[in-house]
């Protein structure tokens, strides 16, 4: 029988990664399409677009961090 607290913590951990990943994906899709437009219009902007694309990834990394610490709080795992 799984403890409800453990289940909720696990759910929270999953959500923190999942929601952060969705947010990153959303941000990257917007930046990506705008970036493609920019690259089509102006030469030499690939590096800028690459950097802009990479910035939202921090969100999912932070989500991972939160999940990691949350999983550590599950009784029997931490």
């Amino acid at each position, binding site marked *: 029988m799984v403890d409800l607290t453990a289940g909720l913590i696990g759910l929270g951990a999953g959500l923190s990664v999942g929601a952060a990943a969705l947010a990153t994906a959303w941000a990257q899709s917007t930046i990506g399409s705008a970036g493609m437009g920019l690259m089509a219009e102006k030469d030499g902007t690939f*590096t800028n677009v*690459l*950097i802009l694309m*990479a910035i939202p*990834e921090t969100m999912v990394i*932070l989500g*991972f*961090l939160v999940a990691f610490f949350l999983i*550590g709080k599950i009784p029997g795992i931490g």
Partner: protein
Amino acid sequence: MAMLDLQKMRKVRVITLKDRVESVIGSLYDFGDIDVRDCQVSDLDRPLSSFEPISEMLIKLRAMEHQLHIKPEAPEAPIYSLEEAKKQYGKLRLHDAERIQKDIQELQAKKEHLVERKEDLLPFRKLYVDSTHLEGASVQFVYFELKPGTEKKLKAELKTIPHELLYVNDDGKRYALLAFDVRMETDVNVLVLKYGVIVHAIPDVQEGFGEALSKVEGELAVTESQLQNAKERLKTYREQYGPKLQEVKAGLKVLAVKAELPFKFGKTAHFSVVEGWITDNDVLDFEKRLARIPNVFYEYPETNDLPPSKLSNAKLVRPYEFLVEFFSLPKSYSLDPTLFIFLTFPLFFGMILGDIGYGLISFFLALFLKLKSKNALVKRIAGMLALAAFSTIVFGFIYGEAFGREDLFGIELHPLLHRLEHPETLINLSILVGAIHVAMGFLLGFFTQFKERHMKHAIAKLSWLVVELSLIAIVIQNADISLLEFLVPLKFWMPYPYSVGLLVLGLGGIAKLESPTHLLELPGLISNVLSYLRIAALGISGVVLAIIINQVPVDFAGTWAMLTLQKPFDIGAFLGFVAFLLIFVFGQIGAMTLGLFESSIQTLRLHYVEFFSKFYEGGGVAFKPLREKGEP
């Protein structure tokens, strides 16, 4: 900091009499290491008179190279005078190639026409009727292929129409030649549509259809043979003159560069002026070369123009210059961060991928590309990959991983840091590496600003460094760093009162030297350091992926063998083994490709976003030598 400096540049202006321009150009080209710029002191000159014939020859050679499908190569370019170039160009016998090409075009067109004619005649080859009889004012003829089994129905329906019908059998098909009263054309058309598969237009021939076909086939055979012969001649030409064509083209390209150089020269009634940039190291050589030409003067004018940037790094470090150029070159008076990228790129890459197997494969791949590729960019990337792969092998031993397994060909590996058992250590280590990298960025920011005499901003960078270090000290007081023992003394060196005091001091410095609004960037600093967590996160996800890939083929092969086990041949077990091998190999290739891609992109990001944002501006203009090293 000399190793972080770019090559020192000097602007040079050469003034020459008009009749010495060609000599000056020759001398500048031989010198090579000069970035010639548009002259700003007067109107720009016209190219040398040789430019037009050279361009014309080059265009023709490029077109011929394209038409003959000669793979463009860059052979060593010979040094030609215009006369010599014309002579060599003549030896290429381009007219021969053009004539052969014309022949091929004509023969191709003739062949197509004959093939078409043959197809038109083919259905009539068994129609033994004199073609002159198929004409008449009141009689019309139609020749068509009959639908199988419709002969009787057609005959029945034709009863009401005056006609003559002739059947022809050929190659399993049945054709009908129908002669009818021209007034019944509409009715006949309906019947032909109903019972015919296809109507063939009656070809215009002088003799019998069979003879006409034989004649066309004979002509076609001759044409094909002639075409083949022409193609052989072109192939021979390509083999005989292809390399020479490339060589002459390379020589002409050099001549073209020289001939069009005066486009950048300034002109007066009697003089020409050329301006450019050379490195301080080359000044003596430059002066020595110009001294050989009479009536040529040079000077080094003071200027506010931004000098071009030329990086200068050791051979081992040089491949990483690509990453700096890819972002943006530093300004010539600024710092060159290549050395730092050389140190940290392989480190982060190895920390993320960290696998002996992947490292070895990447290393050999890099070696292969370095030795086999002729492309300069591929060679540079291979150079970067080789070092990164070496670091991956080292971290593979630290993590005790080879293709996601904990043994290498049966020999058990003893990890110093087990990524799955002690992820918290890897996380702490990643943040620590990030903190050091960001601190290094601030330190470089200080040096950059100091070098550019922006003392206020230089001290502000130091304030940020103080803020970061004090924050680390505060975190360490609370964090569990038992597995990172070397950090423990920090707890005692920097107790709370000191660290908090330093933090306040640093923040005060920023508010005072920059502006209070800059304090809003504090969460950005924390986020920058935490961003290095991706090293741990990607590493752990990579190793989990490799473990899954190792497990899937074992499970699949086991299930397959169990389900299909047959006797007396253990074919099921054999197929299971094949499936195991396929899934394992393709799975590992996929995991390694993903690992290489992710490690490169994420490492690059940590440099461009987290590290560069602390000190690097870029905005430099590349030094473009008149002649690249290695060119004639």
